[in-house]
């Protein structure tokens, strides 16, 4: 048996990865990776204390030592692609660099250890971070008010549409339908449905944008809102955005903006200025908090003053400071309680007295740890850095467009912003689809672009480089895509059977869904 030849393709060369079974397969009784201190209180008999609620048999969790924990998860990690390894051009996902200082500051003891129910006087530092982040996001979006409570983008959509509903309800009628372009992310219609609205899809115009004449025809007194992604999922700015807002407002309907693509706008234009009434942001996209393999996210919702009374409870306010109680002793070197009662006449706190609120959308105050990271990102950039970031993101997408448009079909010729969408039309003629090209891209050392979305483009290749890619990495990406286009002509089977360099080859998704195996079980 021969070892893998040491060949280079584009920017990569194969290297070893360690095999690793499931953690349960490594377990053996008696091994342990923990040590509890001795009990300093009298021991108890759990069976006696818990009675019928006592669990006689523990769950079958693995038993391993600490070095095995480290090796297990380190080995698994090496099977992942990541931004830290290279370009991750997933359209609509904004896979940008996740600064490490964000991780560092989120773990500062006084912040990471704060209990959400501690007295507000002992949480002023945590609350100041909320206040500053809110102020920054309001300024960036041009809106009037904000809630940070939603845990992700779809949760933000849910919150935003609840605000819309509460607004209409306060005027006597919640209305019936929400308009959604056919280019929208699937969360938009799913959100409208769980907020009790009918979904009316609207077809995109030949440029991939909103058909304004069609919109004017269908907006009526039953229309609660239009959910619009701007720039759209094909990376195009709705240049008639204010007419769209005017059409809606003339019938009393509202404009909701899905802020998934805000990375194209920060510092260059503000949704609040071009007629948006309510929008969500994705801190895990635009504001650099890590995707972490699928989450956590954070989906703040910003709105105009007309929607402010309906925001989820609680909202952050300044209140008169109560007479503070200061601990008599403090831990040496820990400037905590002794900093209180410094004569401040107001303090930050939560207000629950919101008679028109839509209610809570999550326990406590949201994915707080993400607020710290997003604020650290904003502070690292400042206004000039944020603007430069947006310009670089748009420049990168247009550079890719220029480098590939002779080989890949551009279904919409409209100017691109932060992402560019091609179709597989020319390659499909040779039997090669967007998904095949994506898999072949893996062999060149890149994560694929977003495949087959948006659905208004047949066989879409949706490419969002973000600002985090250097000229060198972009040139390598363009070269890889050009090389694959040539392979489609010369050796289509090579592309169709890709990837060839990964630990596993293409996985059988059909069997996975037909006969689901969703957990490990011990072999009898």
């Amino acid at each position: 048996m021969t070892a893998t030849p040491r060949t280079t393709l584009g920017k990569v060369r194969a290297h070893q990865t360690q095999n690793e079974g499931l953690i349960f397969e490594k377990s053996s009784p008696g091994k342990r990776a923990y040590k509890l201190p001795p009990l300093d209180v009298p021991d108890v008999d759990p069976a006696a204390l818990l009675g019928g609620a006592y669990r006689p048999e523990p769950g079958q969790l693995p038993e391993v030592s600490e070095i095995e924990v480290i090796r297990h998860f380190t080995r698994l990690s090496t099977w992942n692609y990541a931004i830290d390894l290279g370009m991750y051009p997933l359209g609509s996902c904004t896979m940008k660099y996740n600064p490490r200082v964000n991780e560092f500051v989120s773990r500062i003891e006084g912040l990471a250890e704060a209990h959400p129910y501690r007295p507000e006087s002992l949480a002023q530092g945590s609350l100041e971070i909320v206040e500053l982040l809110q102020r920054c996001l309001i300024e960036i979006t041009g809106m009037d008010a904000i809630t940070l409570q939603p845990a992700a983008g779809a949760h933000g959509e849910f919150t935003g549409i609840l605000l819309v509903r509460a607004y209409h309800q306060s005027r006597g009628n919640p209305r019936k339908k929400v308009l959604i372009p056919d280019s929208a992310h699937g969360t938009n219609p799913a959100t409208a449905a769980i907020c009790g609205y009918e979904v009316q899809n609207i077809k995109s115009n030949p440029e991939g944008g909103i058909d304004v004449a069609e919109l004017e025809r269908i907006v009526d007194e039953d229309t609660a809102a239009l959910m619009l992604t701007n720039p759209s999922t094909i990376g195009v700015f709705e240049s008639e955005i204010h007419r769209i807002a005017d059409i809606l407002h003339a019938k009393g309907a509202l404009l909701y903006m899905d802020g998934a693509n805000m990375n194209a706008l920060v510092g260059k234009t503000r949704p609040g200025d071009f007629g948006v009434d309510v929008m969500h942001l994705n801190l895990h996209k635009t504001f650099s908090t890590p995707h972490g393999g699928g989450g956590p996210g954070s989906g703040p919702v910003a709105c105009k003053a007309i929607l402010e009374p309906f925001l989820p409870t609680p909202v952050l306010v300044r209140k008169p400071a109560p007479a503070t109680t200061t601990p008599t002793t403090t831990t040496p070197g820990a400037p905590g309680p002794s900093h209180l009662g410094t004569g401040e006449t107001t303090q930050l706190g939560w207000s629950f007295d919101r008679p028109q609120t839509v209610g809570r959308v999550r326990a406590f105050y949201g994915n707080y740890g993400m607020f710290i990271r997003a604020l650290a990102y904003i502070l690292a950039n400042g206004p000039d850095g944020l603007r430069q970031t947006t310009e670089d993101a748009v420049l990168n997408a247009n550079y890719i467009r220029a480098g590939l448009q002779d080989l890949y079909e551009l279904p919409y010729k409209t100017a691109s912003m932060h992402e560019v969408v091609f179709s597989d039309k020319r390659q499909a003629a040779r039997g090669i689809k967007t998904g095949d090209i994506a898999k072949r891209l893996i062999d060149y050392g890149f994560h694929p672009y977003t495949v087959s979305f948006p659905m208004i483009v047949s066989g879409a290749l949706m490419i969002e480089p973000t600002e985090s890619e250097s000229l060198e990495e972009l040139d390598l990406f363009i070269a890889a895509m050009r090389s694959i286009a040539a392979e489609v002509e010369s050796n289509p089977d090579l592309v169709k059977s890709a990837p060839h360099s990964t630990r596993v080859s293409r996985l059988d998704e059909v069997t996975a869904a037909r006969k689901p195996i969703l957990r490990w079980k011990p072999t009898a």
Partner: protein
Amino acid sequence: MRYLPKSDAERAQMLSATGALSIDELFAMIPAEYRITSDLDLPRQLGESEIIDYFKAAGAKNAVGLASFLGAGCYRHYRPVVIDSLVQRGEFLTSYTPYQAEITQGTLQAIFEFQTMICELTGMDVANASMYDGSTGAAEAIMMATRITGRSHSVVARSVHPEYREVMATYHQHQGLPTTTVDYNRETGQVDLAALDAAITPDTAAVLVQSPNFFGVLEDIPAIAAIAHAKGALLIVSIAEAVSLGLVRPPVEADIVSLEAQSFGVALSYGGPFCGVIATKDKYLRQMPGRLAGQTTDADGQRGFVLTLSTREQHIRREKATSNICTNQALVALMATIFLTVYGKEGVRELAHHNLAKAAYAASTLGTQPGAKLLFAGSPRFHEFVLQTTDSPIDLNNRLLTHNIVGGLDLSKWYPELGQSTLWCATELTTRDHIDTAARVLAGAPVEA
């Protein structure tokens, strides 16, 4: 800007390749009247050391180094160091949802292990990859039950975390899913079984209880299940303190379990990010929301993992999806998986045992001080308990704070009928010294400095 990997010369070279004459030309689609021409009103760009100084100062402005008896859905447990070492590996931290299975086997296998561990702990057949948190998970569990049963009402115990109940109300109000709340027995702190039975109608899709409940008391799950099932309703059990599963019998009679896994190695972090998860019986799998990792084989017959059953999800089903959830809490679920691997079969049990012992000592010590009474004293508890005091919670907590102790949570906002009552929590990190000091403050006795 230090995160941007380009020189001005490279920018000029790239711009020229695009054919644009200026960067503003690339933004020409934005009508001129909406284009910003000056800096936003934001703090100036800071150096890394300044950023760290800012957040350290904020952390110091919060009180640090205090002992705390707060729990109520957010629990302070020890977090083994290896958790942060491992989740900060860039391959986990900076990877996306594992849709491209060939290059995300690490995340996928870890999710599969997480799902298995949750099944082992809860006694359910299947578990998803995570939900936002315990409150939204509970709301989604009820929506799931309405799809399964075709019924539209729910019955929720008043002993469920009040904020979870608020979230459920927000989720259900516009979907035609009315809720009846059932009170608790004033003696036991458990859901009133007779009232529960009376509240369930032929329209009831699900009964939702929490155990340990908001007062720390364990509910009688087999009895509640029998009442719910007799009328064709499903039983959903919400668990806010996951460590309890080390010693508390899993709710095997439930149809759906909604778990908050924060206790498994996740920092308090002022309330988030946490990690919800929904687990259920095999037969209800297709109505479960959220992502799932499944085992399969590759073209060469090797074991591998993929995201599966996505026809339930919004990116395929759009307005007919089981939920609108997309991004979940993956990295936090990984923390929980590592935590459960560190503690393992014996450790989770031993950890639960320590929590039980600390809380038993705290409840008996604090509950026997003059002017203090332990409520629901005869009921089985895990690591939380309710104290009724002759002092007001505000006065008591102010006195405790002068000894660097954050006392129990004032319950009057949600449960005024309990008078001057506070909810206390002890975990393995609570020391006997903290408990004894709190007892002396409670008694008004002198406390050694």
